[in-house]
């Protein structure tokens, strides 16, 4: 433990080396800011005019900047005050009370499943997304993508009207064009008609698709999503002969084994997984136990960063570990896998020890453990994992199976479609969602194939790579604009109700399909029709309940019990060729920020640092330091990666703890046609992804020419032996529960000021607990905060200057030596110190303390000396160096939270503990003449946290959760020796290593 917090004893070079390379980076383009700030706008900037009426009605809060400036001008020139208008409704919409935000339950589809959300709406503007506590896949939390999708809604670069070629069209014209076509198509059952869509979790849409296929029996329907679940489904077919979907109860597992499975973030249902995982990581007392997480992986994922034991191996080696695991379990722990004998492949010594210990641990936890295979692993690994779970008796208590509702084989699907297009069998291709021209396997060369199809219609959110090649492009609605429904991972169904009428001329896939059926209807009608059919008769009350709760009770999939066919699993493994040693393997994986590229035009996501590399506005080829060394590549150098004779120049990023002999290629960047934000950002790694190597492929990497500027929000990676993140093992904690507090050398606080007229003794006194033991560093809090508090994005060049604006950042430190590094995450919001150093130095009282212990920041009082941030030991304050929102399109203002001032340039800002939420509840309670209940006020970061690592509340209320956590032995405050008396405190992180692993 002691050497955990003093890594430099182990790794003198680690931090410094990285730092140096970054210095070089920052040195590369010195005086570029001249280019950034454009002269024409200066006067506009200085003489910003007051809001005009419409805008004032639209979102008046977003004009503080302007108001501030005009105030200033009045201050100088004393000119007249701005004319503001009030635009009341002509008729008041039912149950809408102006000024009071409303919350609606709906559902977001992502990764082929529905995630229940609650959306806050201000006068009809959806402004914030939160998880729906009643929804099984969300339980009130969300991932960063759900948070960011609100910005997607107001994306000015969305496609706004249908186009034919480059000419703008109307839907009428489209129908006029389509109708004759349909009649001819209907004649021969839709021969030559092909649909390419994303897999959907919407039963109504699936039914509609079936209807369409029934109407055009000879048509062809293909689903394709670049990040699909082919392997898992294929694996299940191997093991059980049927496509199963795993339903995990991770809170029941004592031992979790991840074979390259990033189940805390990348795998579907990750939010639920994280919640269940977090439950078993939470320890209140020395009696409590913790689960143990073994991770075998290539990339350093956030799941890997939570591992108690982590084994880094090249992708194909991971499968070998699975094989060895089966061998050890069958061989030494007399586990039944169909009787066959498994031969352990060739593994490194470290891996062998790992497997042996792991096997023993599993054997000891039969029925209380689980083996998870990652989506990038081949089917046989999934099959084996399922078999192992069965053999270990985990099926039932931990793993349950339901039938995969939509088990289409997508790789073959798109390949087949491509062949058909090639051979002229397709003369009318309808692309519904998706962007194959960008993300289809490179060897297919979908764009070229599209040219061979006479008519291509493309329904898409942006006029993207595919849409611009299609001769008809149809704008798609955002999920907050249209009716629909979606099933959770476990099948529980939710109605997707729109929060706002389509902002542009978009239509949903459901509506477009209804056109193909000859009777175009709007989504609302279609949905009610569908449910009428399902319920026999449409019931308004049932419908309203469903809308209100956000879930339809009792709609979960039926559980299936089956026994695996071990022989086919073994057969599959015997077919498998052991990997060629040496050489470099490429691993394709979704990007933590833009996923498969669909969030590429979302500035929040682009500026959201990668949880591990902390890179923003880019992706890069991730290499281990050893691999990089062998290639003679430094961090940020351009390397040329070639896979199957396809080359790509891409920047290299050296990641501690990454597997040697592997290059990890995050997908989703290098978009060409998406919008002003995402165009040309990063490198298009799809160019290397072929049907034969969708996930893993042999590759060769060689140093390229030149250097590339990778920008990170955190330049220094090592913790320099400072007791900031405090870690121990479960044993150490049991022996010495106070270990975390013992780590600081806080002298008895002395003061010159004995005559203080006030103390913080009157409830409420707000405080925040952050449990480092459950924080998985998923960034959800950062985005939630950005959405709640109108935090601007600043762009790559400004982040390079350390001017990012996030109010809550997640510090990630590498611990241990560079090769086998472990990582720790530490969310840092404002600490709201009782003796706040920032307050003492403000010359104008712009930051000071409230009676309930909040460190207040008053933008309209701030003159911007930046002294407060200089004097903040935690560096949580953010300064508006420039008018960040100057070039922002009007429409973005609709995404603003009206309860939070939009800051103008020249003022400081920081975390407020979501004071607008505190005030709302305070006033509510006041009016109702009652006290605020614990848990009534939840900050944005707390609300979104999948693992409930953040708890906010009243420290004086001994019953409140936060007070209980404060009382825990693990709790400590950051830099206590400065006697700043922070209100935000941390709970030390615990790891739960297997003692035998240490011995071996």
């Amino acid at each position, binding site marked *: 433990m002691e050497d955990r917090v003093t890594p430099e004893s182990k790794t003198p070079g680690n931090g410094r080396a990285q730092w140096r390379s970054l210095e070089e980076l920052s040195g590369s383009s010195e005086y570029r800011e001249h280019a950034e700030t454009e002269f024409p706008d200066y006067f506009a900037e200085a003489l910003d005019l007051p809001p005009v009426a419409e805008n004032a009605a639209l979102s008046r809060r977003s004009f503080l900047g302007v108001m501030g400036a005009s105030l200033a001008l009045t201050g100088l020139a004393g000119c007249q005050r701005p004319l503001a208008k*009030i635009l*009341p409704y002509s008729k008041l919409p039912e149950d809408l009370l102006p000024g*009071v935000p409303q919350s609606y339950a709906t559902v977001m589809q992502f990764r082929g499943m529905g995630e229940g959300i609650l959306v806050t709406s201000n006068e009809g503007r959806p402004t914030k997304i939160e998880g729906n506590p009643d929804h099984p896949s969300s339980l009130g939390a969300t991932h960063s993508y759900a948070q960011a999708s609100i910005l997607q809604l107001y994306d000015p670069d969305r496609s706004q009207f249908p186009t034919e070629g480059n000419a703008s069209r109307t839907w009428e014209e489209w129908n006029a064009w389509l109708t004759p076509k349909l009649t001819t198509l209907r004649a021969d059952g839709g021969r030559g008609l092909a649909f390419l869509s994303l897999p959907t979790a919407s039963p109504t849409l699936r039914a509609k698709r079936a209807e369409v296929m029934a109407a055009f029996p000879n048509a062809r329907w293909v689903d394709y999503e670049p990040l699909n679940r082919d392997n898992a489904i294929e694996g299940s077919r191997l093991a059980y002969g049927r496509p199963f979907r795993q339903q995990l109860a991770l809170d029941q597992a004592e031992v979790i084994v991840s074979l390259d499975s990033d189940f805390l973030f990348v795998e579907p249902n990750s939010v639920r997984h994280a919640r269940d995982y977090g439950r078993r990581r939470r320890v209140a007392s020395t009696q409590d136990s913790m689960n143990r997480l073994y991770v075998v992986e290539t990339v350093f994922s956030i799941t890997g960063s939570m591992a108690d034991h982590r084994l880094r191996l090249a992708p194909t080696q991971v499968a070998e570990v699975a094989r060895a695991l089966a061998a050890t379990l069958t061989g030494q722990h007399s586990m039944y896998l169909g009787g066959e004998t498994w031969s352990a492949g060739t593994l490194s010594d470290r891996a062998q020890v790992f497997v042996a210990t792991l096997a023993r641990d599993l054997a000891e936890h039969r029925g209380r453990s689980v083996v998870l295979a990652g989506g990038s692993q081949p089917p046989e690994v999934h099959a084996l994992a399922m078999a192992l779970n069965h053999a270990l008796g985990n099926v039932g208590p931990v793993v349950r199976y339901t039938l995969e509702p939509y088990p289409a084989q997508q790789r073959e699907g798109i390949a087949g479609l491509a062949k058909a297009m090639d051979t002229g069998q397709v003369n009318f291709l309808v692309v519904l969602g998706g962007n194959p021209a960008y993300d289809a396997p490179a060897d297919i060369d979908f764009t070229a194939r599209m040219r061979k199809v006479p008519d291509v219609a493309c329904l898409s959110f942006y006029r993207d790579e595919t849409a611009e090649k299609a001769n008809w492009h149809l704008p798609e609605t955002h999920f907050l604009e249209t009716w629909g429904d979606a099933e959770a991972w476990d099948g529980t169904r939710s109605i997707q109700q729109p929060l706002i009428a389509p902002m542009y001329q978009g239509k949903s896939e459901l509506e477009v399909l209804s056109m193909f059926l000859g009777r175009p209807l709007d989504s609302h009608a279609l949905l009610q029709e569908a449910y009428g059919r399902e319920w026999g008769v449409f019931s308004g009350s049932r419908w309203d309940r469903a809308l209100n709760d956000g879930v339809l009770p009792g709609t979960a999939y039926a559980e299936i019990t089956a026994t695996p066919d071990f022989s086919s699993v073994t057969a599959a493994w015997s077919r498998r060729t052991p990997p060629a040693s040496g050489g470099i393997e490429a691993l394709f994986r979704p990007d933590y920020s833009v996923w498969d590229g669909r969030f590429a035009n979302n500035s929040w996501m682009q500026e959201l640092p990668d949880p591990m590399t902390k890179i923003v506005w880019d992706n890069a080829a991730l290499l281990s330091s050893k691999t990089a060394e062998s290639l003679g590549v430094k961090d940020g150098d351009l390397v040329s990666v070639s896979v199957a004779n396809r080359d790509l120049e891409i920047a290299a990023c050296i990641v501690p703890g990454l597997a040697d002999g592997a290059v990890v290629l995050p997908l989703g960047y290098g978009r060409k046609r998406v919008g002003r934000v995402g165009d040309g950002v990063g490198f298009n790694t799809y160019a290397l992804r072929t049907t034969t190597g969708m996930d893993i492929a042999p590759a060769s990497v060689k140093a390229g020419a030149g250097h590339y500027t990778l920008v990170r929000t955190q330049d220094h990676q090592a913790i320099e032996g400072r007791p900031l993140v405090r870690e121990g093992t479960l044993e150490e904690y049991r022996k010495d529960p106070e270990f975390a507090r013992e780590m600081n050398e806080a002298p008895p606080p002395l003061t010159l000021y004995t005559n203080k007229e006030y103390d913080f003794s009157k409830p409420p006194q707000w405080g925040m607990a952050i449990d480092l033991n459950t924080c998985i560093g998923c960034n959800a809090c950062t985005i939630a905060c950005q959405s709640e508090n109108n935090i601007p994005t600043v762009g790559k060049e400004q982040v390079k200057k350390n001017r990012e604006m996030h109010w809550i950042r997640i510090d990630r430190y590498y611990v241990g030596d560079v090769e086998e590094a472990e990582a720790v995450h530490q969310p840092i919001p404002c600490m709201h110190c009782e003796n706040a150093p920032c307050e003492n130095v403000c010359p104008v009282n712009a930051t000071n303390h409230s009676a309930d212990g909040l460190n*207040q920041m008053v933008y309209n009082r701030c003159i911007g000396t930046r002294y407060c941030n200089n004097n903040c030991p935690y560096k949580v304050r953010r300064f508006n160096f420039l008018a960040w929102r100057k070039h922002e399109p009007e429409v973005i203002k609709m995404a603003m939270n009206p309860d939070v001032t939009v800051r103008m340039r020249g003022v400081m800002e920081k975390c407020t503990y979501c004071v607008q939420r505190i005030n709302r509840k305070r*006033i509510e309670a006041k009016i109702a003449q009652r006290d605020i209940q614990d848990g009534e006020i939840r900050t944005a970061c707390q609300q979104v946290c999948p693992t409930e690592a953040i708890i906010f509340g009243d420290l004086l209320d001994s019953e409140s959760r936060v007070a209980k956590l404060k009382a825990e032995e693990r709790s400590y405050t950051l830099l206590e020796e400065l006697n700043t008396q922070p209100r935000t405190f941390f709970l030390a992180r615990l790891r739960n290593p297997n003692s035998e692993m240490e011995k071996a």
Partner: protein
Amino acid sequence: MIFPKWTNRTPLPVAVGGGFVLILVVTAFAYYISPYSTQVGYAPTQPVPYSHKLHAGALGMDCRYCHVAVERSPVAMVPVSQTCMNCHSVIKKDSDKLAPIRQSVDTGLPVQWVRVHHAPDFVYFNHSAHVNAGVGCESCHGRIDQMEVVRQAKPLNMAWCLDCHRSPEKYVRPPEFVTAMGYVPAGNQLELGRQLVAARNIHPPTDCWGCHR
């Protein structure tokens, strides 16, 4: 060359004059940003010549008939056009003055009222909090019932707000009199106020984040 005798009389006037000018400039600026320079009296002409004097005064309509949200929402809510039509679909149904209202109801487009009481965008005033605490409409908006054209009656600047936030007992009323115009406290306001403050546990924030977020 020597200065003539009379020059000895110059220094004093010059000094006094200079000092006077200096003081004038400083006080001018001080006044401009002081609590005393306010927008009181601002009374823009509205698209519809609505008379509070008639409706609230002569007809004695309650504020809450039109400003429905005032007890439940941060905004008092300028009435929707439909509200006017509740009566004016019957009374004066085709008065020209009401044309914009009728038009708005027909088209569904809003009437563009001009904001009179204008808090800066960084100020978050919550009507429901104040009304429920027993702050009378009159206390901030003056004798609306006597205004033909609504004009700003009070400074509405921070110093003025703080006066009440520091000593609410000087202003609070029993809830039933909140919308009363020309309210006279039964007995000594301070005593009554203290009782109300105690009874309803009123302690208005003087912290920045009471109003600025």
